[in-house]
Structure formats: structure tokens, C-alpha cells
């Protein structure tokens, strides 16, 4: 239909019609969408079959008919029998003696006996289709509108065109709006997936940090208390020694001092101080762990660096692994690293991190048994870098395999899966000019392959 309609604007249109439509144009627009052709109905007074050709020519001059290309010929009783166009009259009158030969004959002699007749209830689309099938170039005729009682009026091809055009414009505006909405909601989704994985990550990290912080703080508090005791013991012992060696006034509370030393010695002895050293070793270890976590987090989010840069994919893998380390450790999952010699890669590291994090956490989540194993391998293959993340988890059902990259596709319970992880990863990899592939065997495991060009996306901005 669209293709047929596109031919219309190029068809020559009588200039008087063009001027007329400037005034009726707005009406046609307002009415058309409401009731199909009924909205375009012109109550044209028809000519009778017996009317002479000259009289019909006279009627064409009537200002009420100024906008019409043709006049309907309607028999008594309302049956439309034909249509006579200005064009046809003109053609006849321009012939030598045309006026004299035809002038007094009834209009039936010249009229088109098979005009386009459309029921009022016809929709605009339907009418456009019928007109497109009937139309001649140049457009010389309008069409007749009928209802149950017969002749109802005429309709203009041009009005139908305008109505169609109007509706197309309306539809494209709607499409545009829908597209804008979709785009907004997609970027929202990307954001919320980011927040969701960030939220999970933060929960894990907070726990990971607060655990060492718990014993570090406790150990330090206990050490401080023990040092207080030790200091008191030292000074009590000193006082006793002083008293015994005569350095100080021998006074009568030597007994009390002895008692104090005795009491303090039950709280601080060599064994207790030994334990304390053990606790301090733990403390140093804990502080180191916290420091490492914070460093990784900083590395991972690259808050201090933005956009495209050269990055070592192996380092990104290691950093992503450290972020999910707590999950892997809790599930006793063994990680096998097979990192190759890789040239620096042009990429947005934070985004590649997100891809790696998604693949790793999916892999971890897919493992339900005790012998979990994730293999991460990197390899350079002429100007391209391959990253493989492979697990021995439950695998992906064959009928799901083609859908895992679809937004919202998830097999995980609400609250655990957003179904956006792989969709976003896919998008990121594509924006880098790369590709991501999956293969899986249910019950055995899943392998994701990411291919990235070393020189980044040529042309496409990530």
C-alpha cells in the first residue's frame, strides 16, 4: 500500500483542485481519523443521466463545484450510474466541432460508466488501496460515495491522500515516542542491572571487610587492655624491687604491693602475652586483607580513570576474580587460570570488568555441586584477544541457549536474576567491535567465549 501511495504526490494534479484543498485541508484532517470515508464526504449535488452535456459544463462553472474533478451522474432513486470529469468535457470541447457535436446530447454519452464507487463505511486504508488500484495518471476523477440508500455524495482522492499522510505522520510520531520511551527504559535497565550487581558486590565486600575488621578491632581492644595490665604489673614489680633494694622508703604496704603483683600476674603471664602476639599476627593479616580489598575495588571500578585506554586483559581478569573471590571461596570453587601472553588492549576497562564479572558470577551461580571448577583462559590470536570462561555447572538447556543474551531472560528466582547480565555484556562486547559466544552441555558445563579486537572498535565508539 505504501509503495502505491508514494506515486500519488508526483501525479499532476489540476491547479484548481490544489487551491481548493488549501481551505478544506484542515477539515479533512480533523474528520478523517474519526470515521473513515464518512469524514471526507462532500454532499455534491449530482447530475441526472438525461442532463445535456452543455448543462453539465455549466454546472462545473458553479462555484460550489469549484474543487471537484468530476461530477456524479445519478439516476432517479439514487443509483449512481456514472461519473463525468472536467477532463473528459475539455477533451471533447477541444475537438473540432466537439461542442456542436456533443453539446445537446445527454451526459450519458460521455460519462465514465464504471466510476469508482465506495461505501461510506470504507476505512481510509481500504479506500487508499482501492484508489491506488484504480487510479489513472493524470488523476481525472474523484469517487462516488454510497450508503444503503444509494448515492450519498462524492469524495476527493486528494482528501484521502491527506488523511493517509496525516495518519502516517501520527503513526511515526507515536513510533518516535515509543522508541524514546523504550530507549529511556533500556538505559534505566542497564543502570539497574549495574546497581543490582553492584549491590550484590557491595553486600559481599562489606561482609568481607567487616569480618577482618571484627577481629582486628577486638584484638586491638584486648591488646590495649592487656597492655594496661602489663604496665601496671611492671610498675608494681618495680615498686616491690625498689622497696626490696632499698631504693625507696621501705613502707608498710609492701604486702599490698606483693598482693597486687600476684594478682596482676594471674592476668598477664608469658602465655597470655604469647597469645596476644598470635592475635596481633592475625590483626596484621586482617589489615592486609582489608587493604587488598580496597585496592581491588579501586582497581575494579577505575574511578580514577575514565573512558578508553590500554589495558592488560590478564590484570582485568585477576581483578574481577578477586572481586568474586568471596563467592567462589564460600562455594569451594576451584579456579584454573590459563593466561596467555596478551598485548595491551584498547578498551573501556570498567566495562570489560563488568563483562568478566557477569560471566564469572553466572558461572559460580551455575555450579550446584561440591566439585566446582571455573577455567579462565586468555589467548592472543593475530590482532584479536580471546577470553574463555568455562564452568562445570549445570549447563544451559538447548532451548534456552539462543535466548541467554536476550534482555530479561533469566532462569533464576526473582531477586537473584535480572536477566540483564548477558544482554549488557553482549552490548558492551559489540560496542568494542568484538563478539561473544556461548556453548553448553546440560549437566556438564558451559563455556563463554569473548573475542575482542586489540585495537578496539574501529569506528564504533564504545
Amino acid at each position, binding site marked *: 500500500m505504501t509503495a502505491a501511495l508514494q506515486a500519488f504526490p508526483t501525479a499532476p494534479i489540476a491547479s484548481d483542485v490544489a487551491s481548493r484543498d488549501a481551505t478544506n485541508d484542515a477539515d479533512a484532517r480533523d474528520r478523517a481519523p474519526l470515521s473513515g470515508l464518512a469524514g471526507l464526504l462532500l454532499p455534491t449535488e449530482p447530475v441526472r443521466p438525461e442532463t445535456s452535456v452543455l448543462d453539465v459544463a455549466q454546472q462545473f462553472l458553479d462555484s460550489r463545484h469549484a474543487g471537484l474533478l468530476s461530477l456524479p451522474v445519478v439516476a432517479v432513486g439514487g443509483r449512481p450510474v456514472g461519473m463525468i470529469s472536467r477532463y473528459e468535457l475539455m477533451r471533447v470541447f477541444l475537438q473540432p466541432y466537439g461542442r456542436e457535436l456533443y453539446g445537446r446530447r445527454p451526459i450519458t454519452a460521455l460519462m465514465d460508466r464504471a466510476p469508482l464507487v465506495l461505501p461510506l463505511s470504507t476505512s481510509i486504508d481500504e479506500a487508499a488501496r482501492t484508489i491506488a488500484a484504480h487510479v489513472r495518471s493524470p488523476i481525472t476523477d474523484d469517487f462516488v460515495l454510497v450508503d444503503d440508500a444509494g448515492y450519498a455524495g462524492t469524495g476527493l482522492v486528494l482528501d484521502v491522500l491527506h488523511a493517509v499522510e496525516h495518519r502516517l505522520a501520527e503513526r511515526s510520531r507515536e513510533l518516535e515516542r515509543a522508541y524514546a520511551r523504550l530507549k529511556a527504559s533500556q538505559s534505566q535497565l542497564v543502570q539497574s542491572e549495574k546497581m543490582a550487581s553492584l549491590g550484590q558486590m557491595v*553486600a*559481599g565486600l*562489606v*561482609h*568481607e*571487610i*567487616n*569480618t*577482618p*575488621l*571484627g*577481629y*582486628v*578491632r*577486638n*584484638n586491638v*581492644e*584486648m591488646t590495649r587492655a592487656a597492655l594496661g595490665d602489663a604496665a601496671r604489673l611492671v610498675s608494681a614489680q618495680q615498686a616491690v624491687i625498689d622497696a626490696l633494694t632499698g631504693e625507696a622508703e621501705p613502707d608498710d604496704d609492701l604486702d599490698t604491693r606483693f598482693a597486687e603483683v600476684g594478682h596482676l600476674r594471674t592476668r598477664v603471664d608469658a602465655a597470655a602475652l604469647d*597469645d596476644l602476639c*598470635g*592475635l596481633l599476627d*592475625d590483626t596484621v*593479616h*586482617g589489615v592486609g586483607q582489608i587493604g587488598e580489598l580496597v585496592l581491588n575495588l579501586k582497581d575494579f571500578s577505575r574511578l580514577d580513570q575514565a573512558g578508553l585506554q590500554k589495558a592488560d586483559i590478564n590484570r582485568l581478569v585477576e581483578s574481577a576474580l578477586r572481586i568474586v573471590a568471596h563467592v567462589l571461596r*564460600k*562455594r*569451594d570453587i576451584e579456579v584454573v587460570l590459563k593466561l596467555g601472553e596478551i598485548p595491551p588492549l584498547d578498551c573501556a576497562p570498567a566495562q570489560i570488568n563488568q563483562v568478566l564479572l557477569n560471566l564469572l558470577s553466572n558461572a559460580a551461580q551455575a555450579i550446584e555441586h561440591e566439585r566446582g571448577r571455573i577455567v579462565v583462559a586468555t589467548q592472543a590470536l593475530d590482532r584479536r584477544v580471546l577470553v574463555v570462561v568455562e564452568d562445570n555447572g549445570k549447563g544451559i538447556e538447548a532451548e534456552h541457549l539462543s535466548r541467554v543474551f536476550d534482555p530479561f531472560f533469566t532462569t533464576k528466582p526473582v531477586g537473584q536474576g535480572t536477566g540483564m547480565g548477558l544482554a549488557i555484556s553482549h552490548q558492551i562486547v559489540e560496542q568494542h567491535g568484538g563478539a561473544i559466544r556461548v556453548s553448553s552441555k546440560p549437566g556438564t558445563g558451559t563455556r563463554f567465549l569473548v573475542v575482542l579486537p586489540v585495537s578496539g572498535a574501529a569506528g564504533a565508539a564504545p
Partner: protein
Amino acid sequence: MSAPLPSVLFVDDEERILRSLRMLFRGRCEILTTTSGREAVEWVRRRPVHVVVSDQRMPGMTGVEVLREVAAHSPATMRILLTGYADMDAVTASVNDGEIYRFIEKPWVAQYLVDTVEQAARVARHDFALAAARPAASAASPVDTAVAARVAVLDDEGALAAQVRELLPAAVRVEHAPDLEGTLELLADHDVAVVIARLSSADGDVADALKQLKRLRPATLAIVVSSLRDSRLLIGLINEGQVFRFLLQPAPRELLRRGLAAALERHAHLRTQSDLLQRHAVDAPRHEPVATTTGRLLQAWRRLREAAMLRIA
């Protein structure tokens, strides 16, 4: 020394936490430690354990799961969660499933932890002794629990009150108060078994009031219904208010019904064995509510306090 030391079981998958805790509690109690939730449950089945202090995030069983099983095998054992991350689901489950005594976050303050565990141990020893003296007492007729019990619903909308009324047998009187003043007046005049409160803001008077109330009326149990996913608020309600159930709005009918039934039964139990009330001891609220309250509310509080005094006398 007089009584043998109480036994306290610490559960954490980080060995260093256990080492640190062992040192902190040395000489104060008999210390048991394990990195496995399953083993912790085994300990409690095999021997009396007065207090279990568990981490939440552990491989295998979560802390809430451990504490729920502990409660099932040994209801007299006091349960404390000591965890590095308080996600809302874990805190909610710790109230509703674990019925825990305290929710403590890492890093903890040494003195607070020691005091809390010792306090819990005292309560537990008392209950263990009680249970030993009256072996079958706790299983006594749960049927007459609902008789003449009174339930107060604090709900500014009224829908919750209607639902509670519908869920409870006719013998239970359900009183509806649209505001806090009304609720406090109800509490001053009557012996209320359960307060069901709709909580619409975290820092309003209602949360504070529930905490104060627990101090004045430890036998009155609180069920909070709220759409607020605020773990800090809930931890406050646990530690300072011993909230009995926390239901996220809209509260599923069945959960509410079960919560109400459990609360009525517990209340009846508490009334017959007032010794058990110590289990509902709370930490002092971080701040007194009086600062923000209006004259009428103040009046209601005063009446409630006086009523509480009379009851004690």
C-alpha cells in the same frame, strides 16, 4: 566458684574471628567454637548450650538457618547473630524464623558483646533450670491461650485492623487505635497481649514507643507491619524492642495469621511463667522519646507508666 560457667557456642567460618572471641571470653564461660553450621546444630543436640553466637554468611548453612534449628532443638538456648553485613532479608528472617535475642554487627564493641552474651547466658541458665524442674510444663494446654486475650492494632488506615479482626477467633478482643495516643491509652487501661503496629516512617514516634513499651510491658508482644526495607530500623526494633514479628507490607494473610497465633500463645506462656520474661529484656533505646512528643502523648505515657508501677507493686 559457685555455679559452673555457662556454655557459649561461637559459629563463624573465619577461624580468626573464633580465635579472637575465644580470647575475649576466656575465663568468662565455657567456650565452644566451630566453623560449620551443621556441627553447631549437632553440639546443641548433644549437650546443653546456653548461648549460640553465629555469623550469618557462611558456606552451607546461613546463620539464621543455624539459629532456627537451634531454637527447634533447644528453645531455652539464647540466640545471637553476629554478622558483617545486615541485608534486609537476613534481618527479617532472624526475627521471624530465628527469634533472636540480639542482632550484633561486626566490628563489634568488645564490652557490649561481653555484656550481652553474659546477660543472655544468665537468662538461659535460669530457663534451663526451670525446664529441668518442670519437664512438661512448657507443653501445657495451648488451648486457653486465646481466652479473653486482647489485641491492639495501631493503624492509621484501618485496613490492617479489619484484617486482624477477621483472622482471630471471636474470643479475642481486637481494639483499633488510629494513632499512638489511642494505643497507649488502650495499653494503660487494659492488659494487652499483642500490639500490631503499622509502621510508616522509620524515625516516627511509633518505633520509639514500641521500644519503650517493651520495657514497661515485657509480656506484651509486638508485631510490626511495614513497607520500609530498612535494616537499621529493624535491628533497633530487635535489640531495643524485642519485636516479635516483622512483616513486610502487604503482609501475606497466612504469615499474619501464624504470627498472631504464635504471639498469643507466647503471651499466655509468659503470663503463666513470668520468669521467662527476662528473655524479652531489651537494650536501652538510643534516645528517650519524650523529646519529640506532644502533650497528649506525654500524658498517655505517664498513665501507662503509672499503670505499670501498679502492676509491679
